[in-house]
């Protein structure tokens, strides 16, 4: 027989092969028995944004462990099934499908990155299973449908917070550095500019870069010409650290402004003294003296040896809100659960008092932090 | 009678080096011409000029009245010039059959679309080509090796296959680049018969570049001698053998026995 025909035959046999290969994994992970509730989590445990994914996973896991230690919910234990999407496009969709069809999860938690949450959302929506994203700040995420929620604020709010903050300090001239490979950074810059220019500020320079870049001298030299009062660096900490040192080398004294993407100890390690006196908005401050926050910080530190960052806190909150809703709904049935989540009001989370609005977004304040002596120090809270 | 191939004052220059200078010669229909010369005399360069691999710096090359320069090598093959290579260049991953079949491609009436739809016209044509290829292979006693990978043929057979492949393009002029290289005396003897046979059977002209004087002198009707890219002599084998310029070119001196004494 000729090659082409064999190839066709193979195509026919293929169904059996895949079914066999993927089928042999079923055994251990079999779906819920009567006395457990299965919740699915999609997180980037490896790959480019693994830092965020690992943190949010740690927070989520901690929440579930606490609930189980306290006897579970509705008299059942909760089982958290976590799938890694490798920080890659497409993978979040696949693992979300896997969780829905294989593990029969009652709800989905995740993802941190908006792009990947947008892959999961249609799957959850179609399956009629509620999904709560801990930290996807792009407005489009919850627009997918009425089963999709989030526990963090959204980019327009975050952009507005920093713009308000800059204006309040009397900084009228701001330059913007955007990471064009990150939708998060693009969005943040855009919303910042909108509010800032509408309220009397001027943008004196717009430069862009790509994730993984190390040299920002060309952009900063151009930025310097506009003599900005501050520079918005809306990307992630990886690049902001280097940007900060190079800015100081070029004699730029203006502080940097940023969003929650700065939240990593690595920022200060790389930037050193140069980042002192810069500001960024975040979901919570681990310095907050509220007892429930300090309790969370202590417990997290005991377990992981590090101070929790915002992603960990958001992961924790997303799981807790879900558990709370299951409790109130008294069932894990999709629609009822969705209605219960939607009714969340004034939930006392680690990242603030959370209420979900009509767009299924969290309505809550942001905090502004500054870097002082190598530490993130609380400056002020900005209400929505 | 008009010439098959006519080179008129052809020169080519690589940087500062003049590889071929002012070369003029022609080949008549049905003629078997030899092109000889010491190493580096520019024989293969002449082949590459005729087959369009190189473009001449000046001069004209006419094949059947058509100017060759400016044509791509594959277009020149379509005009009717086929060649073999000094170092065998078979399609190493293909079978003997497919090597020859490749040369049939340019005679195809049907193009890419037919190979996709595989209709009756296509199947008929494929069958016809298959027959032609087998006919040709059988003539050279390679029919039974049709499915053999060409790499596993013995050296002499590979040389032969290359000639068969060139013949499959149905050329009017066949250029053979050192076909006897690496052959033992018996094989050389066979090769001489083979070249004669091809010339007569297919009614074509042959231009032969060869180092082995016994082969060249044995079969060529006319011989041209190149030295440093310039033609220094032309004539029948007997004339060439006695030409003092040629002897000097090969030996550098006028005494002693050289390859021309063979």
């Amino acid at each position, binding site marked *: 027989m000729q090659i082409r025909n064999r190839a066709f035959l193979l195509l026919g046999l293929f169904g059996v092969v895949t079914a066999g290969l993927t089928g042999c994994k079923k055994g251990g992970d079999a779906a819920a028995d009567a006395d457990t509730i299965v919740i699915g989590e999609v997180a980037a445990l490896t790959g480019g944004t693994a*830092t965020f994914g690992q943190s949010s996973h740690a927070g989520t896991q901690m929440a579930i462990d606490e609930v189980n230690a306290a006897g579970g919910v509705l008299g059942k234990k909760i089982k958290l099934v976590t799938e890694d999407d490798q920080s890659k496009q497409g993978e979040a969709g696949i693992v979300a499908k896997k969780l829905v069809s294989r593990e029969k999860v009652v709800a989905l938690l995740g993802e941190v990155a908006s792009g990947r949450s947008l892959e999961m959302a249609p799957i959850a929506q179609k399956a009629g299973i509620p999904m709560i994203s801990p930290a996807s700040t792009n407005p489009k995420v919850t627009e997918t449908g009425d089963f999709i929620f989030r526990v963090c604020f959204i980019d327009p709010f975050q952009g507005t917070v920093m713009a308000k903050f800059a204006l309040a300090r009397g900084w009228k001239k701001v330059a913007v550095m955007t990471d064009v490979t990150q939708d998060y950074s693009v969005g943040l810059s855009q919303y910042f500019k909108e509010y800032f220019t509408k309220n009397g500020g001027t943008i004196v320079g717009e430069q862009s870069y790509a994730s*993984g870049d190390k040299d920002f001298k060309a952009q900063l030299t151009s930025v*310097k010409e506009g003599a900005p009062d501050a520079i918005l660096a809306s990307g992630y900490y990886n690049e902001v650290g280097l940007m900060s*040192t190079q800015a100081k080398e070029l*004699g730029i004294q203006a502080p940097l402004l940023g969003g929650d993407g700065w939240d990593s100890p*690595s920022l200060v390690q*790389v930037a*050193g003294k140069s980042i002192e006196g810069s500001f960024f908005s975040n979901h919570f401050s681990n310095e907050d003296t509220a007892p429930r926050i300090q309790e969370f910080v202590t417990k997290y530190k005991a377990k992981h040896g590090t101070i929790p960052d915002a992603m960990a806190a958001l992961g924790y909150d997303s799981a807790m809100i879900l558990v709370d809703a299951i409790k109130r709904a008294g069932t894990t049935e999709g629609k009822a659960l969705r209605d219960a989540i939607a009714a969340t009001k004034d939930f006392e989370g680690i990242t603030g008092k959370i209420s979900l609005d009509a767009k299924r977004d969290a309505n809550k304040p942001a905090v502004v932090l500054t870097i002082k002596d190598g530490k993130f120090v609380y400056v002020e809270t900005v209400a929505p | 009678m008009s010439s098959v191939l006519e080179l008129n004052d052809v020169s080519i220059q690589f940087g500062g080096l003049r590889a071929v200078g002012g070369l003029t010669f022609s080949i008549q229909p049905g003629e078997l011409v030899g092109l000889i010369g010491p190493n580096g005399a520019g024989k293969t360069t002449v082949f590459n000029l005729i087959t369009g691999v190189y473009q001449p710096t000046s001069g004209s090359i006419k094949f059947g009245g058509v100017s060759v320069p400016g044509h791509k090598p594959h277009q020149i093959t379509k005009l009717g010039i086929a060649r073999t290579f000094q170092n065998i260049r078979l399609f190493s991953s293909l079978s003997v059959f497919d090597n020859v079949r490749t040369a049939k491609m340019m005679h195809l009436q049907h193009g890419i679309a037919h190979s996709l739809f595989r209709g009756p016209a296509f199947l008929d044509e494929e069958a016809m080509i298959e027959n032609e290829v087998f006919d040709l292979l059988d003539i050279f006693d390679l029919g039974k090796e049709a499915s053999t990978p060409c790499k596993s043929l013995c050296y002499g057979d590979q040389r032969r296959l290359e000639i068969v492949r060139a013949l499959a393009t149905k050329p009017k002029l066949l250029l053979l680049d050192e076909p006897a290289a690496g052959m033992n005396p018996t094989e050389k003897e066979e090769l001489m018969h083979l070249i004669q046979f091809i010339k007569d059977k297919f009614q074509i002209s042959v231009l032969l570049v060869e180092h082995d004087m016994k082969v060249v002198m044995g079969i060529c009707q006319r011989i041209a001698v190149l030295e440093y890219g310039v033609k220094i002599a032309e004539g029948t084998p007997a004339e060439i053998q006695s030409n003092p310029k040629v002897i000097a070119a090969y030996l550098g001196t006028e005494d002693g026995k050289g390859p021309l004494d063979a």
Partner: protein
Amino acid sequence: MDQFVQQLLNGLFLGAIYALIALGYTMVYGVLRFINFAHGDVFMLGAFGGLYVHKALAPLLNALPWPLALAVVMLASMAICAALGIAIEYFAYRPLRTRPRLNVLITAIGVSLFIEYTGQLVFGATQQPFPALIPRQNISGLGGLTVTMTQVIVVVVTTALLIGLRYIVMRTRLGLAMRALSLNPTAAALMGVNTSVVISFTFGLGSALAAAGGILYASLYPSVDPFMGIQPGIKAFVAAVLGGIGNIPGAALGGMIIGVVETLVTGYSQKLGIPSGYKEGVAFIILILILLFKPSGLLGKVEREKV
């Protein structure tokens, strides 16, 4: 005007580092005729080598004046990477010596991915700060222009290595053997050149150069991660091709050109009205244009296929 000069300086210093990496690329290609795709990853290993050597010897190094400490870290990391380079060649490339060049290229891609992902496993995916081996201070007295100490050191070391490499290739017996090998491996072997030793040496030398580049790069941009070698690796490759691959001064020239062009495009994109994000593509556009119009590069020789 000041701004333009500053941008030009930015570009030249960026170019110097590309040039340094390109040296290794071009030398390996010059001798062995294949693109060592993993060069950028050895560069990354060099930076991590420096990081760990510094960690291990911190008390000792802190006692030394900085130029000496830098030299110790650099030489140690260069030695480690030279050994790694020789090992890579021995295990991955040597079995392929007689195979088509493309097979070697595919293997090189495999080696590159292997180093990156093993690096991710061993070092972790997150970036780590690189110690200040060179004092982070500006050179004073240049008016409004900014030049850092690190940048000066980069240029000094690059120039020194360029001259040293040229000396090795042109003036030493091993260099002669390398050149012979690049012209005709078989003939070189027949003339008594121990090709295996020469190839190992070439790889060792190339990897040591990459390591030096890695440490200087990490000093300029003090954060290291397992994927840090990809971008500069590609840029340096383009620089090597631009200068004429196989040509050592060409690599330096190519690096400088890429650095300056990239910096100017980035710095003036806003004025020119193109999104500055396109700078990512600049190196590739240069590469494609060069290969289409002058495949031998600016200083390279034309090669003809023998028919």
